[in-house]
């Protein structure tokens, strides 16, 4: 059985008297994980702990089955990190800088150079590879940082706000690159972002962090499926009024959906089953066109998790 990609066991990180992370317990088995949290929630501290750059006060962090306390530096060969702010080697070409970074991760010199060329082609900077990074635009710098995170072929990719400052077209392109790396090459993804649509598109697991505490760990499906088993239905518009009346008689709440004939049916305490929806449609005498779990936006789920005690 392969080990969890990331395991936090009672992780506490302290800076002097300030506790940045409070006894965090969580497991990430693999795939893609989104770290969500407001500013100052503890995402950066968690990242430092994952990279083995801060020693936990108590508890432990295991990445790919290895404890960051004991395997810190060697473990970082398997981790690709794309930081939020720009970081590059000054005074050298983009490709030389990347080759140098690959060499620090144990790549032989020739392989490192070849690999630097390859990843720059992959992120779309092939034509710009002999330029210095300081001359790059914001979008190019973001792609350079992704290339720098990938150059040593990591097993886990940590991305901190990868689409910051990008125009919509560049953002979609960046998300496409990350998606390809994650889905086609099996590189596990840990994404910290304030842009919830990015997380929603890329991640299948979400951890919500606030004030150094783990508020929620769930799969994306769990989070975006409405609470209490709500169902989204579509019926013929003329039958909507009758259906709503019957549903209210049964103690259900009915909200009008985003499109004509769409209703969201919820119950305060029980999961609304498809069978009960079919029974209501029969009673109301209107045909059902669609029944499915009502999805919420990740934003709703995120805010709900933050508000939860």
């Amino acid at each position, binding site marked *: 059985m392969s080990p969890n990609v990331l395991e936090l066991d009672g992780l506490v990180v302290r800076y002097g008297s300030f506790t940045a992370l409070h006894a965090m317990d969580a497991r990430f088995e693999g795939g893609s994980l989104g770290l969500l949290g407001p500013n100052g929630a503890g995402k950066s501290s968690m990242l430092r702990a994952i990279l083995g750059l801060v020693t936990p006060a108590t508890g432990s962090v295991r990445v790919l089955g290895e404890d960051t306390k004991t395997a810190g530096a060697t473990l*970082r060969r398997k981790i690709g990190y794309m930081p939020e702010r720009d970081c590059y080697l000054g005074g050298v070409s983009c490709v030389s800088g990347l080759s140098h970074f690959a060499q620090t991760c144990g790549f032989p010199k020739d392989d490192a150079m070849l690999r630097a060329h390859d990843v720059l082609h992959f992120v779309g900077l092939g034509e710009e590879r002999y330029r210095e990074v300081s001359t790059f635009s914001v979008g190019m710098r973001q792609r350079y940082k992704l290339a720098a995170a990938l150059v040593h072929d990591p097993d886990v990719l940590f991305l901190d706000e990868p689409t910051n400052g990008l125009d919509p077209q560049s953002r979609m392109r960046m998300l496409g690159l990350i998606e390809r790396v994650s889905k086609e090459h099996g590189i596990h993804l840990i994404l910290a972002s304030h842009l919830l649509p990015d997380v929603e598109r890329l991640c299948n697991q979400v951890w919500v962090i606030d004030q150094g505490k783990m508020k929620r760990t769930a799969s994306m499906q769990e989070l975006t499926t409405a609470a209490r088993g709500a169902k989204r239905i579509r019926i013929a518009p003329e039958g909507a009024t009758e259906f709503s009346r019957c549903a209210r008689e049964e103690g259900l709440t009915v909200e009008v959906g985003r499109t004509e004939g769409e209703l969201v049916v919820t119950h305060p305490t029980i999961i609304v089953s498809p069978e009960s929806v079919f029974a209501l449609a029969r009673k109301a005498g209107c045909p059902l066109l669609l029944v499915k779990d009502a999805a919420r936006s990740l934003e709703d789920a995120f805010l709900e998790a933050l508000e939860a005690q």
Partner: protein
Amino acid sequence: MAFRAAEYERYKGERTNRPAWVPIAFGTVQRGWKSKWVRRLSMLSLALGFGLVAMMYMVNQVMPSWREIAEQATNRATQGSGLKVDAGFYLILTNVFVRPILLPLALLFGYDLIASDMRTNALEAYFARPVTPLGYLTGRTLAFVSFLMLATFGPFFLVWFADIATSPSEAHTDLIRFVPISLFFALLFISFTLALMVQAVTSLTRSAIWSNLIFVVIFLFLSAMGMVLFQITDRPNMMAFSFLSDAKVICATLLGIDLADGGSPTNVSPAIAFSMMVGISIISFLIILRGLKRRSLV
């Protein structure tokens, strides 16, 4: 060139177990060598070495006993303290290589090494990889010191080799046999201290202009201050403030020369000169390491 598809591929080659500081050291040398003035000064130093060798060879062809002639001629001119080609001659040569070559080369090579990485956040990129602050500093410093040694000890070695090759007697050979080892350790110690000091200052200022101003203070103002304090107090150990004076005493001590014998009262005692250098090295090391450790918190 073969067509390369814009597709990501997993790396299938072997990774080496080479420590991360090795590529950092090679990268540092390449980076330093890119500076026009570093290249010029290094070439000048090597050219000086080769020039001295060529001169020794030619003079030796014309006058095989040029050493005695030079000693007698300078004896007459200086009333007794003539030029003798022994360890003292190599100490004089340090004036040619340490002041005009080693110091400016150290500044030109090192003034932007760590500062540049701090400005561009490259440290963050390093420390997110298998590079530790100590490994980073080891790579940078080793490359820095090796380069300084090549540019200063290299010419010394050439001159010494020519001197040995044209040696007129066994006695002369015995007299200078130990010189390269002594000079190697003296220059290594000075270069190491200088490399750490330059990096410490630049890691604090993070700016080329401020770094250079601080070096002006260290090398000129402190030397002048040492001299003034010596004049006021009449204590030669006040000259310990002068880095150049300390360097000279260290070279002389390792070459087995007692500077007090030459009638020069302005020299620091060797123990104080060594302590000063060791102190500078330790303080610089701690300053750099503290700065790097702070930066290693991504």
